């Protein structure tokens, strides 16, 4: 067994989990909202991309670009019409609403697309690889990882270099005082969820190209995303990438030892991190 290869594959797999998690981390960081429908939104994004591909015959990457503004509008509307109404000092209502949304989404997808497993075809890209001497890496996992890093760099840039990002952080700190600055927190939340769903679309692209999906697999993606966010520390996007990598490496190492251990090893790694660092690896200095 080649350990370097196993770990390299795990790190790249972590890129996928970080993509799953980045949108969740963004929404949680800004409005303390745990979106239990996050995994199902990823699956919905994958179906949307599939729909665009099958209607137009477009390359999946272009189809994702088409899906992004649609998903942004959807996230914006979801926040405006539904989630803003349930946000408040009590954390239970948003949990219940997003839990319900998760069930609704699964059933709508089931009605619309049937229970058949689907896949977004990526042609030769699916099997392409680069030989680095020590290890051979798939082009698709490399692209996934690069996209995850790209998404996190872009989100950090928005957060720390733009006026919108300042408004995000200020609203996250203290929505009442933010409103005294002329910021409308509900509007900021809607933009944040819109951006989160753009990130979800990127995650959906790789989910759909790398493996089969059907309407029921959302909740399992949510679990991985959740674990990545918690391992990384709430509010830290680079921490989320690290969290994804830890789960990815644990899974591939687990699978290399015994294929039955793949999923379990990821969850065990999560529990071990929680035991050692209950606030995650890179928690915010205050909360």
């Amino acid at each position: 067994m080649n350990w370097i290869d196993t770990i390299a594959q795990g790190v790249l797999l972590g890129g996928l989990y970080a993509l799953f998690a980045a949108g969740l981390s963004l929404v949680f960081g800004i409005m303390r909202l745990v979106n239990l429908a996050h995994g199902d939104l990823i699956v919905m994004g994958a179906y949307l991309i599939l729909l665009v591909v099958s209607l137009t015959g477009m390359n999946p990457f272009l189809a994702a670009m088409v899906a992004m503004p649609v998903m942004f509008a959807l996230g914006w509307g979801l926040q405006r019409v539904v989630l803003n109404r349930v946000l408040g000092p009590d954390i239970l209502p948003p949990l219940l609403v997003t839990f319900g949304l998760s069930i609704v989404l699964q059933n709508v997808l089931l009605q619309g697309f049937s229970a058949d497993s689907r896949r977004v075809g990526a042609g030769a890209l699916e099997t392409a690889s680069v030989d680095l001497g020590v290890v051979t890496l798939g082009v698709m996992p490399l692209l996934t990882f690069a996209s995850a890093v790209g998404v996190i760099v872009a989100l950090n840039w928005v957060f720390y270099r733009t006026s919108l990002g300042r408004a995000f952080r200020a609203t996250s700190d203290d929505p009442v005082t933010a409103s005294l600055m002329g910021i409308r927190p509900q509007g900021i939340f809607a933009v944040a969820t819109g951006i989160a769903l753009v990130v979800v679309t990127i995650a959906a692209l790789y989910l759909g190209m790398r493996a089969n999906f059907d309407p029921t697999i959302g909740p399992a993606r949510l679990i991985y995303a959740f674990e990545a966010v918690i391992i990384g520390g709430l509010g830290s996007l680079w921490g989320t990438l690290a969290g994804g990598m830890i789960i990815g490496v644990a899974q591939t190492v687990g699978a290399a030892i015994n294929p039955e251990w793949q999923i379990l090893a990821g969850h065990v790694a999560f529990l071990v991190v929680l035991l050692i660092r209950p606030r995650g690896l890179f928690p915010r200095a205050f909360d």
Partner: protein
Amino acid sequence: MTLLETRGRTARYGDFQALFGVDIALAQGQTVAIIGANGAGKTTLMCSVSGVLRNAPDQVLFDGRAVGALPADEITRLGIAMVPEGRRLFPSLSIEENLLIGAYGRRAAGHWWLQTVYALFPILRERRLSPGTALSGGQQQMVAIGRALMSNPRVLLCDEISLGLAPVMIRDIYAALPQIKATGASVVLVEQDIGQAMKVADHVYCMMEGRVTLSGAPATLSREAIHDAYFGAHA
């Protein structure tokens, strides 16, 4: 000309009534001070003018317009900025970012911008990249005032800006007031420090238990009258 006034302003928190019909008026270019003990309703009044607490529309008039029912962000965009009690700086933003966020609801170009705020409080320029929480209380208060000025407000509401500060800091902060007024802003000061309020205000309102118990120009108010209005006549 009256720029800002409250008319029969009432407020309650559940069963507890905090304000019983408060009438206060601020004329263009004036400084009005609101004094009173803890629990008199001063902060509640500020919160209702700034939109943090909603009112009936005609309980607050700004520039002749009924604004009582508008949310805080729209009030700010109209030109009323608040320095909240306890400063409330954003801990994840640096000093400079705290100032810049104040310009988010900026309605028009005006005198106040980063450079003019730094000229008013030079210490902030030196510390501009530190997090807001790394400053002393007085310096944090300067950031909070500068942040409110960044929107170029027509009315600046200052809620307890001297609370908990060293006397030398209070003096420095009050020394900035004439420059703030010189740019055309009218000021409402909520103060527990009566002496400070009497020195700078054109008009003083004293509140007790949710009502205005005394009002007038500082020169016309005797120590005894203020004492009675502040603590109650039989205190």
